[in-house]
Structure formats: structure tokens, C-alpha cells
């Protein structure tokens, strides 16, 4: 409940403050958001699997974000930033889908 409320509060703050993303962060923020979402869904699944751990979630969340941004950064430096971004999004999307599928089985028996 706390994370859900915090997420909603964050959304509201973001919409109200209407921040402008710094230029240097613009290529990385979308990927970082996707990575964080992957961590969140993974956490939900871990909760339902009974293997959730706060510390692991925090570390995985941060490492997901950092690694995703790092991959995009390296891709940009190598000139394949857009392709690598697509690849990261695909991988994270697959993971999110699988996690959601697992969560769905937990919650709905289907």
C-alpha cells in the first residue's frame, strides 16, 4: 500500500510540478523508467512467490535503472544507441510480460 500510494503521489507531483527533463537525461529516462517498472513487477511477483525481500528489491531497482541507462549510454557512444535502446525495451518488456503473467496466475488462477 505504501509503494502504491508513493507511486501515485509521485505521479501527481510530477504532473503538478511539470518538470522538464534535462537534456543529458533525455535518452536515459525512458529506459530507466521501463527498467524500474520491470523491477516493480518483479517485486510483486516475488511477493506472491513469497520470496520478496526489501533490500533485494531496492538493489535490483537501482541496478536495473543504472544498468539500463548504462547500456543506452554505451550504445550512444558506439553509435548504436537507438538499436540498443530498442533491445533493452524488448528484453524488459518480455520480462514485464512474464512477471505479469505470473502475477495473474497468482491472483486469478489463470
Amino acid at each position, binding site marked *: 500500500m505504501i509503494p502504491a500510494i508513493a507511486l501515485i503521489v509521485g505521479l*501527481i*507531483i*510530477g504532473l503538478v510540478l511539470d518538470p522538464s527533463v534535462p537534456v543529458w537525461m533525455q535518452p536515459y529516462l525512458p529506459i530507466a*523508467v521501463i527498467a524500474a517498472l520491470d523491477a516493480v513487477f518483479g517485486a510483486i511477483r516475488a511477493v506472491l*512467490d513469497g520470496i520478496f525481500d526489501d533490500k533485494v*528489491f*531496492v538493489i*535490483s531497482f537501482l541496478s536495473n535503472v543504472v544498468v539500463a541507462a548504462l547500456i543506452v549510454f554505451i550504445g550512444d557512444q558506439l553509435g548504436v544507441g537507438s538499436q540498443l535502446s530498442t533491445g533493452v525495451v524488448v528484453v524488459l518488456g518480455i520480462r514485464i510480460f*512474464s*512477471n505479469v503473467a505470473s502475477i495473474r496466475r497468482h491472483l486469478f488462477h489463470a
Partner: protein
Amino acid sequence: MPDDSMPDDPMPDDPMPDELPDAEGPGGDSDTRRDRTDADPDGAVSPPSSEPGDGETPVRGSVTGWAAWRRLGLMGRPRATRANVIVGLLALALGFAIAAQVRQTDLEGLANLREEELVRILDNVTQENSRLSGEIRELEQTRSQLAAGATSEEARAAAQARLDSIQVLSGTVAATGPGIVLTVTDPERQVSAALLLDTLQELRDAGAEAVEINGVRVVASTYFTDLDDGVTVSGQPIRPPYVIRAIGDPPTMAAAMDIPGGVRESVRRLNADATIDQRDSLDITSLHSPTTPQYARPVPSPTS
């Protein structure tokens, strides 16, 4: 997201008959995440048994159905642990980042568009560009046509003016305009061809454009010879009085005739007389028949 909708759980807690237990295939086993105890995640799929281990605290083990909803609700409850605070902060940051990114995406123009969209936009722009280029070509063609038309009109006018002047100079057309009539009476037949030539030169110097002497058109090839009782102009004998009609600026030509030591004075010295009549309008109707040059040929113009 943790959901606290535990009371309105639509799902009964009965084991579901799983005809297709693994319809998603290997969708659920891609976890390299935080399962440090390395529990089998697929174990949640196949056995639909609701584990009865749902206590007041999060417990180990996979749960499904109602118990799963309850566990989610339990997990989200406020706990004053540092990890929970950090998790909340992370969720806060995530929400903030999502909102910021969404706003950013809304704000941005071409920079954030996908490749296909950019290609489509580029395609549109290119098509528009080619269309406008065609329009430019059309308009330029029209303009050049119009310019060519104007040029040919001008060229025709210029050619006509050139033709007129050449015709007047060559004496092949009648000429009209202001001028003077110089009448030289020569009772003693003293006026020589040389004097007439001098007179003609004076007139030309004064700007005479078309000249005739006693009905003979004076052109570039005109020559004067002396006769016993007169002169010949281009081989045609003429007798006094000599009537020289010249088209040009009348005052200028009259003044040229009157200068000291000029035509008039010379004529008077020969006991003859010269009278000058300035006319506003004067017709020179005599014509010169041009002969085809036997030797001279025009040099081809390099531009034509």
C-alpha cells in the same frame, strides 16, 4: 503494483481446474531477480493449491487466489522499516519520472518521434518539396516565356528602329521632319562642286540626317563633280539654283550655314546668294536606289 483491493476479491478461493496450466509457455521463468532463496517460480503455476500459510506477516511460499490478494495487501501496509521507506521513496521517484517522461514526450516535437514517423514526415516533406519544386519550375518557365516574349518585342522594336535609321541613311525611304531649305542662287555659275561638298559637310556636321539636292537624295556614296554650267550629284547634272533640303535641327543647321567663313559667306563671295528657310516640317521624297555591293560583304555577326 500492490493493490489493496482485498475485500472485493472477485475470485473464489477454490482451486481452478487448470486445463492449460502453462499456456504462456516459459513466460514465467525469466526471473533473474531477487529470488535469493531460489524458489521455483513455476511452482506457482502448476499447483493451484492455495497455500494456507497466510498469516499476519509475509511468509515464505507461493500463494494464489485470495491468499495472494491478501498477501499483496499485507505487503503494502505501513511498516517503519528503513527498507520500506526506501521502497516508498523509489516508488515516489518512479512515479515522478513517469510523469516527467510523459510530459516530456508530449512536449517534444521531432526529437522523440519514432523512425517510421520521422520517415513519414520526411516523406511528406519531400513530396511537398517536389510538388513545390515543380510549381517553381512551371512558374519559372512561364516567366522565361514572358521574358522571351518581351525580349522579342523589344528586339523587334529595336530592329525596326535600326531599319528605319538605316533606311533613312541609305536614302531608300522618304523622310520627314523639321529642317531647313537652303537655296543657293548662282547666276554666274560660280558655285563649284567643292563648295557644295563643303556645304554638305557643314550640314552633316550640324546634324543633318537626310539631305537632298535638287531632287537628288544625298547618301554616303554621293559624289560631286563639276560641269561647265553646273555640277553633277552622283552623276546627275543639276543646274542652279541649288535647293538643298536637309532634315535636322533647323537652328543648328542655319547657324552652321551662317558662321563666318562658312557656306553663306563663301557663296556671297562668289556673287551668289544663299537663303535659309527653317521649316518645322519638311519632306524629302527623293529616293536613292541602293546598288548591290560588288566586293564588300558583311562580316557575319558572331552573335547571330
